């Protein structure tokens, strides 16, 4: 059994799995049930000036029979009073001293307002604050949420205000609705943040009802853009997490959020630099119980790979992410079909023929064959193949002459491989 305990920016947790600030952390009784189910920590549903929500606030994206591979919402922050929330946080923390309870905050952009709410909430026994600079709908129209997170100067300024009075660790939750995630991340750090968390939800319109022609979710005949989350956003979140993790200046912990459903997803975030993870949509779909397999699966994975603690894998893949210009142009793979596993569905053939480089033909037994001279090693056939092991990508070069685009630009006398379709500047 590996050690799953984490210390995230000074906040201790029995495991790296936290609930993100959202409906599953709406109130004390819910958070307590979540802790009973095994969640290590919970970021309470964002506190602030009580708001009024609209009715009908979620919409889902389905893929075939799979429901809700993406979710969008136009819900605002908590609609419960500050007193009640703070009282429940206090009681919850007393009952569960070993679990992490984080208070998510969002108030208007005034120093006094931030000072007041931080002071009022920090004696609840909670372990830290998360500043919600990420909500992209509703609150942003009032100058809060992503309206702050999208302007690095504001992010830095409000973080400073909070740090002036807070005696707890402060996590800044970033919005993904920016062109580049590094500037707001650095701004949070400059403002004194102890950590960042990302991503919050992404601007989105979920779809349109073809009969009424009203977009989802319908609020009395109208719709507004909402925040997108769930399985479908994971790659976007992974990119942003790894961008920050490999930034030379940025050096505070990252809490990874976005599309995490299983222990596998969580491990990916950890490998790319997250110090822990937060989950919302998967719990909204299946309930708190999913954490059992997250813990069990992570444990078995660490045991099988020979790691004694989850901390040993944090950031292990960060050095494997680089700029395109550093990739080796002479690395060469081609697709090969393994007839033993091929089921002759011909999906590889048609994908390559119409979507790639026309490298496939058929042998006398109707098995697909790759013309290795035409194959550029794009992976498409292997990605569409439904039968494991039927297509493998095989390396052809011997690795003796790596040349990146950056190196080649500086020294065009370097030799590039002549193989495959013509590369600009290749000396074929």
């Amino acid at each position, binding site marked *: 059994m590996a050690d799953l305990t984490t210390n995230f920016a000074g906040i201790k947790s029995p495991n790296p799995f936290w609930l993100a600030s959202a409906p599953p952390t709406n109130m004390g009784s819910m958070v307590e049930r979540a802790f009973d189910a095994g969640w290590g920590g919970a970021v309470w549903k964002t506190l602030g000036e009580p708001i009024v929500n609209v009715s009908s606030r979620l919409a889902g994206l389905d893929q075939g029979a799979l429901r809700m591979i993406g979710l969008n919402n136009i819900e605002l922050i908590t609609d419960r009073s500050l007193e009640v929330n703070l009282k429940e946080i206090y009681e919850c923390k007393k009952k569960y001293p070993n679990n992490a309870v984080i208070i998510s905050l969002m108030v208007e952009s005034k120093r006094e307002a931030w000072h007041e709410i931080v002071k009022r909430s920090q004696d609840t026994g909670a372990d830290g604050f998360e500043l919600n600079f990420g909500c992209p709908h509703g609150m942003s129209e009032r100058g809060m949420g992503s309206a702050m997170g999208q302007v690095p100067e504001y992010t830095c300024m409000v973080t400073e205000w909070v740090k002036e009075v807070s005696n707890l660790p402060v996590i800044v939750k970033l919005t993904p609705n920016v062109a580049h995630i590094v500037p707001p991340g650095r701004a949070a750090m400059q403002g004194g943040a102890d950590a960042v968390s990302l991503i919050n939800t992404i601007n989105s319109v979920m779809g349109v009802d073809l009969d009424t022609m009203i977009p989802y979710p319908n609020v009395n005949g109208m719709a507004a853009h909402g925040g997108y989350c769930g399985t479908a956003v994971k790659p976007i979140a992974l990119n942003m997490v790894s961008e920050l993790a490999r930034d030379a200046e940025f050096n505070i912990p990252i809490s990874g959020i976005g599309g995490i459903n299983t222990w596998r997803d969580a491990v990916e975030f950890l490998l790319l630099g997250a110090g822990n993870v937060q989950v919302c949509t998967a719990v909204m779909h299946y309930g708190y119980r999913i954490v059992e*397999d997250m813990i069990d*699966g992570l444990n*078995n994975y660490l045991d099988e790979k020979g790691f004694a603690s989850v901390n040993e894998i944090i950031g292990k893949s960060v050095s494997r992410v680089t700029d395109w210009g550093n990739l080796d142009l002479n690395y060469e793979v081609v697709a090969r079909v393994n007839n033993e596993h091929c089921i002759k569905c011909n999906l590889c053939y048609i994908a390559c023929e119409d979507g790639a480089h026309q490298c496939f033909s058929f042998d006398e037994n109707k098995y697909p064959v790759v013309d290795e001279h035409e194959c550029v090693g794009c992976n498409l056939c292997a990605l569409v193949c439904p039968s494991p092991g039927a297509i493998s990508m095989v390396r052809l070069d011997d690795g003796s002459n790596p040349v990146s685009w950056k190196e080649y630009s500086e020294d065009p006398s370097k030799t590039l491989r002549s193989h495959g379709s013509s590369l600009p500047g290749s000396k074929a």
Partner: protein
Amino acid sequence: MSELEHEQIEQNFAEINPPLNQAEAVFEANRCLYCFDAPCMHACPTHIDVPSFIKKIATGNLHGSARVIFDANPIGATCARVCPVEVLCEGACVEKTLMDKPIEIGRLQRYATDFAVENNRQIFQKGESNGKSIGIIGSGPAGLSCATYLARLGYDVTIYERKALPGGLDTYGMAEYKMSQKDSLDEVKMVENLGVKFKLNCEVLSEPSASAGGLSLGKITIQFKSNVTDNGVQPSATADGSDLHDAIFVGVGLGATNDLNIEGENLEGVMDALYFIEKIKTRDWKSVPIGKTVAVIGAGNTAIDAVTQAKRLGAERVLLIYRRTEKDISAYDYEYELAKKDGIEFVWQTSPIKVLGNGKVSGLKCKKSDGTEFEIACDTVIKAIGQQKQTSFFQNIGIEFDEKGRVAVNELMQTSNPKIFAGGDCVNGGAEAVDAAQMGKLAAQGIHFSLFGKKLSFAGSM
């Protein structure tokens, strides 16, 4: 003796439910809706958390998946192969969800448990010794299950088994096209690895106190009646005078097959279905005593197993003879369908009245319910009309049983003797392996409660 080629018979006995490969398993696992408080879990007698183990297959956590299964059912690998899933978990899946084709729960269960067996994963460990010793009579599903939970709790457990191999009917009774002896013995190995001791070829005798203590060769006597204490009876097993148990679990299953009580029953060629199946289990096909025309009497699941296997061995003509009508048969629909597919001839509303032959069987004289009599020429007669209960054993060890010969137990699986617990076929009168496994689990909880006053509930003991 079969006239078919060895190769042909091997082919005939190929598994009817072959394992899923990785792609199939993952695809199937992802089809599962992951219901909450799922109907399949309720339908499973051991209440395995089915959605949880399936979800773990989908996430690639096979070790965890096997753990969920074995946690609720120590014979999860056997059950994956032999459970009548159509009326249990998979039946609930179609009935209670939108699935028109149920999730293949049994085969997914096999996928996960095969992973554990093939990779020698010892999922549970022996608990720290608690100083108490339990004797278990019978190494079938009930005994194995009880032993597993007790060993996990730290009990010192000894299983007494009269057969040469452990596993009860898992090893000696399951249709060969469902599972092999190796499958059963692999699972027994996991129980052995928990430190459970197996005394094989060791029949527990049940003579009343007078002869108690007397050892016969390779056998033990449990002196149930010799040490009467304030509690009633103090069971003290004395195999070689050494084992003293704090409680006994009785998982002896059922007894011999009922006799036909007709003339000619002792002719050569008349046999008990259990004997016939036991012979098949050796996979020494040529040694199975079977002729060209086989008449099987009865219409339960055992009768079906007998006809389908007789056919697979190469009998030319196989008849199933039943005194009532088609709609009265007790075999499951899918078992009956299998027999029909195998080309079995069904003779309804007919009872045998005399086995014909001179030394050896040459035919069977039958009577229709309308009184007409006729003869069937055959050289083999297999009796599958239900098994007896081991009532004289129960009587001799001093535990009460009901009018049907089933051991009477309370909710702790405790018999009328508070030191003796029971479960499995000997309590429910004969059901499925999975039911016996559940009773073994409940008995382990009952034993722990009676010895330590601690209530606990293992996975799926709801």
